[in-house]
C-alpha cells in the first residue's frame, strides 16, 4: 500500500512537472514576448524594451530560460508581475487562502448535498420524490454558475435580505457563494451516487434479504457507505477541477478575493508570469488531489491497486 502511494505520488509529480513545462512552452509561444505585450504598450522605447528583456532573461536561449525558470520555482522565485512588479509568489500566497476556503467549503456542501440527492433519487419510495430529486440534479448539471449566482444574490440578499451582498470578509459572506458553487458541484456527485446505489440495490443479496422478509434498511445503509464512498472520493477529486474553474466566476460575481480574480485580471492584462503562476499552482494542486483520491480509494478497496487500465 505504501509502495502504491509512493508510486502514485511520483506519477502526480511527473504530471505536474509536465504541466508546468507545457505552460512554459505555451507562454513562450506568444506572438511577441511578454515584454512586448505589457511594457511595449506603456510606450517604452525599443532600447529600453531590449534592456528589460535582458534583465528578464528573454534574450537567453530557451533551454537556459527553462532551467532558470525551474530553478526559480524550486527556490520559491516565481517571477514578478509585469504590471504591478509584485512577486508572483506573494500574489499567490495572498490569494490562495480565500480560494481554498471557498473551494473546500463548496466541496463539503457538494459532498453532503450530492450524497443526499443521489440516495433520494435512487431509493426514495415515492416515484414523485425520486423524480423531484432527479430534476434538481439535472438542474445543477445544466445551469451555468453565473446564472444561479445572479439569481441567488437577487433572492437571498436583495429581495429577502437573509444574507449579505457581494464583497466583504467573514463567514456570513461565504454562505452564498459556497452554496451556489456547491450546488453545481453536487450534480455530478449525486449522479454517480445514484447510479452506484441503484446498482447495489439491484444486487442479488438485497433481493434475497427482501425475500426473507428482513428489513433491508441496514443493508442499504451499508451499501451506501460501501458503494457510495468510493465513487464519491473519485468524483470529489475530479470535481476539484470543476471547482477551481467555478471559483473564477464565483469570485467575480461575489466580489471575493482569490486566485480566480487574479487570473482574470492577469488574462486581461496579459500578465504572463502571473497567469503562469496561477496555472502551475492549480495544476500541481489538482494532480496531487487526484493522487490522494486514488490512494484513498485504494485504502478503501485494495482491488484498485491491481493494475493500471
Amino acid at each position, binding site marked *: 500500500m505504501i509502495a502504491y502511494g509512493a508510486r502514485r505520488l511520483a506519477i502526480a509529480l511527473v504530471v505536474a512537472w509536465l504541466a508546468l513545462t507545457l505552460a512554459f512552452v505555451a507562454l513562450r509561444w506568444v506572438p511577441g514576448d511578454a515584454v512586448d505585450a505589457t511594457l511595449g504598450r506603456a510606450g517604452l522605447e525599443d532600447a529600453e524594451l531590449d534592456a528589460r528583456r535582458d534583465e528578464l532573461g528573454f534574450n537567453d536561449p530557451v533551454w537556459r530560460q527553462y532551467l532558470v525558470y525551474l530553478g526559480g520555482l524550486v527556490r520559491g522565485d516565481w517571477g514578478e508581475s509585469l504590471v504591478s512588479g509584485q512577486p508572483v509568489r506573494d500574489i499567490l500566497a495572498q490569494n490562495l487562502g480565500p480560494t481554498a476556503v471557498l473551494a473546500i467549503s463548496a466541496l463539503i456542501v457538494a459532498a453532503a448535498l450530492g450524497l443526499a440527492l443521489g440516495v433520494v433519487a435512487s431509493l426514495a419510495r415515492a416515484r414523485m420524490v425520486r423524480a423531484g430529486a432527479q430534476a434538481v440534479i439535472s438542474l445543477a448539471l445544466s445551469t451555468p454558475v453565473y*446564472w444561479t449566482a445572479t439569481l441567488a444574490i437577487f433572492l437571498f440578499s*436583495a429581495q429577502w435580505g437573509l444574507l449579505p451582498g457581494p464583497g466583504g470578509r467573514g463567514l456570513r459572506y461565504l454562505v452564498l457563494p459556497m452554496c451556489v458553487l456547491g450546488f453545481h458541484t453536487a450534480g455530478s456527485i449525486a449522479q454517480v451516487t445514484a447510479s452506484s446505489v441503484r446498482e447495489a440495490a439491484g444486487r442479488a443479496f438485497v433481493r434475497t434479504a427482501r425475500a426473507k422478509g428482513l428489513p433491508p434498511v441496514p443493508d442499504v445503509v451499508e451499501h451506501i457507505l460501501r458503494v457510495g464512498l468510493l465513487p464519491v472520493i473519485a468524483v470529489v477529486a475530479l470535481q*476539484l477541477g470543476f471547482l477551481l474553474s467555478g471559483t473564477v*466566476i464565483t469570485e467575480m460575481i461575489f466580489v471575493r478575493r482569490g486566485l480566480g480574480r487574479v487570473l482574470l485580471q492577469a488574462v486581461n492584462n496579459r500578465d504572463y508570469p502571473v497567469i503562469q503562476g496561477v496555472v502551475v499552482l492549480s495544476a500541481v494542486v489538482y494532480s496531487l488531489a487526484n493522487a490522494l483520491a486514488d490512494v484513498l480509494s485504494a485504502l478503501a478497496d485494495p482491488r484498485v491497486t491491481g493494475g493500471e487500465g
Partner: protein
Amino acid sequence: MTRSPIQRAPPVTLLAAGLLGVLLLAAVLAPRLAPHDPRHAVPEDQLQSPSAAHPFGTDYLGRDVFSRVLFGGRRTLGMALLAAGVTLLPGLAVGVVAGAGKHAAGPGPWLDAGLMVVMDALLAFPHLLLALVMVALLGSGTTQIALAVGVAGLPAYARVTRAAVIEGLARPHLIGARAIGAGWGGVVWRHVLPGIAPTLLAFAGVTLSWAILNSAALTFLGYGGDISAPDWGVMLADGRAVYRVAPWVVIAPGAALSLTVLAINLLLNGSRR
C-alpha cells in the same frame, strides 16, 4: 413483438430529443424566424416587458430579446459545435492511435506513452482555467473561444477513447483475429470502433454540453469579441445590470442555455439505460 428504439424510449428522452430538435432548428432558422434585427436599438422602447410585439420583451437599448435569443443560439451553439469538433476529431485520433499502440509491436507502446504524457499534462489543468489561458494566448473572439474550449476538452476525450479501444481490443474474438494476422488498422476500424461507438457517442454528448457551458462562460466573461453580436453568455452578462427591473432580459437567454444543456443530458441518460 420487437419495438423500435423510439417506442422503447421513455417519454422524458423523447421530450428531450424534441426539445433539442426545436432549439437547434430555431438557431438554424433564426434569420427567418426573428421578428426584428437583433442589433436594431429603439431607445424609446428600452426594457419593455414581454408583449405581442416583443414576446420576450426588450433590453436596455430597446432591442428585441426574442430575436437576440434566436440569433444568440446560432452563435452560442455554433461556437460550441465548433469546439466539440476541435475536441472530437483529434481526441478520437489520439485515443485510437494510443489505444491501438499500447499492445502493438514496434514503436506502438512508445507512441502511446508519449501521447498520454501530453494528454495527462493537459488534463492536469482544470477545464475552464485551461480555456482561459488559451484565450490569453489567442485573444478574444468566437473562433478563439471555440479553439480554447475545444483544446481544453481534448485530453479527457482522448483518454476515454483510448480506454475504450484497449477494452475493445481485449475481446476474445479479436485476439483471435490478431493471431490470424489481420492488420491492426483493419481490426480497429472494422471490429473495435463499431463496438465502442456508443461509448464514444455518449461521451461526445458530454463534451458538447461542456462546450456549451464553457463557451458561454467565456463570452459571459467578455472574451467573445464583438460585443454587439447576440450571444447567450453576453446577454446574461449585460442583463445583470438591469435584471431587477427587467428580469426577462436574463431569464430568456438563461433558460435557453439551461434547456439546451438539459436536453442533451437527458438524452444521454436515456441512451445509457
